[in-house]
């Protein structure tokens, strides 16, 4: 009971209170602990945990292969890839220097020395440095396997934002319309094409959309038509008097308008979210430190 329940709760309370109070107490020992060691400790524990996770992953994949469950072949691929990378990470240095040049194997490096007829000796990379050395086998794996895969998963998002906005940006109600309009204005206003769109065109579009809205709201076509014609006439007249400058009036010019949206209403919204998140995190953290919520320990 002591080991399973009380000590974990005590650990939370002690370290939580210690790291929190470290911000206010002017004491070097406490300060170094909170600034440096506390997170280092966590990183080390997390590093051990990675191996625990890997064991779990292997266990599940092996079960799939051994029981020949559906698509077990792919699990075999996962296991093979794991051991491929594991061996490169732990058992092969994969970098041998001859002068400034790097070779994957001792043999290749020695051959290079002979071929170049040089007097250099072959110098293997230090353990530990091999995962960070440019030109090592580990780096090769990173460059040609790991990084294309992650970058491509990331790039899939380019397609997904398009389909998500196509599906979700529908003017169902006022909230959705605001989302839609702000999104479109930012999307166009931030790229060069946006600065080629005249503010006058935007005014016409707005006048037309308002007409559309008037029609939907009053169900009176004549009134809507009257509005559209009247406002078009007004805009055109204004245009001729002002000489159709592309960026005037500025509130209808997308690059200027997006800047305003970005700096004013958007900022207000994100500020509220930030404060909300901040309060939520502070209150939740305090609940943990004071032991009001312990369910993450399985209590």
């Amino acid at each position, binding site marked *: 009971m002591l080991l399973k329940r009380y000590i974990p709760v005590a650990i939370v309370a002690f370290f939580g209170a210690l790291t929190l109070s470290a911000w206010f107490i002017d004491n070097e020992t406490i*300060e170094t602990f909170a*600034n*440096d060691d*506390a*997170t*280092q400790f966590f*990183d080390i524990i997390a590093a051990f945990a990675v191996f625990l996770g890997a064991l779990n992953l292997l266990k599940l994949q092996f079960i799939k292969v051994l029981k020949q469950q559906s698509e077990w072949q792919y699990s075999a691929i996962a296991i093979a890839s794991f051991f491929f990378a594991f061996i490169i990470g732990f058992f092969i240095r994969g970098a041998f220097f001859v002068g400034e040049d790097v070779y994957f194997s001792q043999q290749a490096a020695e051959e290079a020395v002979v071929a170049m007829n040089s007097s250099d000796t072959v110098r293997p990379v230090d353990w530990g*440095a091999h995962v*960070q050395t*440019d030109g090592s086998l580990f780096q090769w794996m*990173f460059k040609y396997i790991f*990084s294309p895969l*992650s*970058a491509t998963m*990331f790039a899939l998002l*380019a*397609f997904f*934002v*398009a*389909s998500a*906005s*196509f*599906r979700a*940006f*529908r*003017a*169902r109600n006022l909230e959705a319309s605001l989302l*839609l309009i702000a999104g*479109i204005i930012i*999307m*166009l206003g*931030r*790229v*060069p*094409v946006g*600065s*080629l769109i005249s503010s006058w065109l935007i005014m016409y579009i707005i006048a037309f959309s308002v007409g559309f809205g008037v029609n939907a709201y009053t169900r009176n076509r004549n009134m809507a038509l009257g509005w559209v014609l009247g406002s078009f006439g007004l805009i055109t007249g204004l245009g001729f008097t002002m000489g159709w400058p592309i960026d005037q009036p500025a509130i209808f010019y997308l*690059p200027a308008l997006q*800047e305003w949206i*970005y*700096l004013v209403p*958007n*900022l207000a919204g*994100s*500020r509220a979210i*930030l404060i909300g998140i901040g309060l939520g995190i502070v209150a939740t953290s305090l609940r943990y430190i004071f032991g009001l919520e312990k369910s993450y320990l399985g209590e």
Partner: protein
Amino acid sequence: MKFLEDIILKLGAVDRRFIFILIGLAVLIPLLTPISLPVRETPTTVKFYEGIESIPKNSKVLVSFDYGPSTRPEIHPMNVGVLRHLLRNGNTIYISCLWPDGIYMALDALEEITDEVNPDNKSTFNIKEYEDYILLGYRPGAEAVIKGLASDLRKVYTVDSKGRFIDDIEMMDDIKNLNDFAYIYSGSAGYPGTFEWVKYGGDPTGVPMSSGTTSVQVNEVIPYVQTGQLIGLLAGMPGAAEYEKLIAVPGIAIQGMAAQSFAHIVIVIFIVFGNLAFFIKQRRDRKY
């Protein structure tokens, strides 16, 4: 009219794979046949430019590479631009990395701007390691690294990326902690990055700092620009393009702007058709 409406309805309910193909083409075609579009600077970018410009000549500046290959297209052009801008003004550069891959990004960036490697390029410099710049390298620990730098740099970095002891490097002589830098810049793609630099680096020490971020982060970071915790901001690839224009070294970001513009237009057109279809459908549903 009915015919037109039917077409719009069809477009509004199109399979998402059709959108995928069009987006792919909209990005691919401008990359294969470059088209140039005018770039217009936004105030946050100008502020950023002025911030870097206002650093006194021959100052020491900390540049952090906090991104990896996946966000390289957005951040890399900014960091290359910042290095150029700083070197042009005669500043010395100290490079740190909070992301493990940051060190490779930094090596690539330095390669791009060195005379030796690119002798024909006009915007390269005759720079030497341990004189004009030093690569401190990657340290794990995210905000702990920044906090460590703020209190004592030598606790975080005992050696630089080449394994040389910091105490033996002349450039590091009068650097004790973050306070000894004139400016901090972080090219950041998420955690750890701008946020942590502001919270644990810029705020506590009062050293002026600015940052370049991915477009996605902009909204999260922009309040800090408003409060002055950040001096300007480079926002995504368009921000990088504007900055390239300001420092008058056009690069990959300006090139990418056409692809970016076309893709946005495709998306907006689809949104418009989606909405028209939505209205038509609503009206028809009401009638029957």
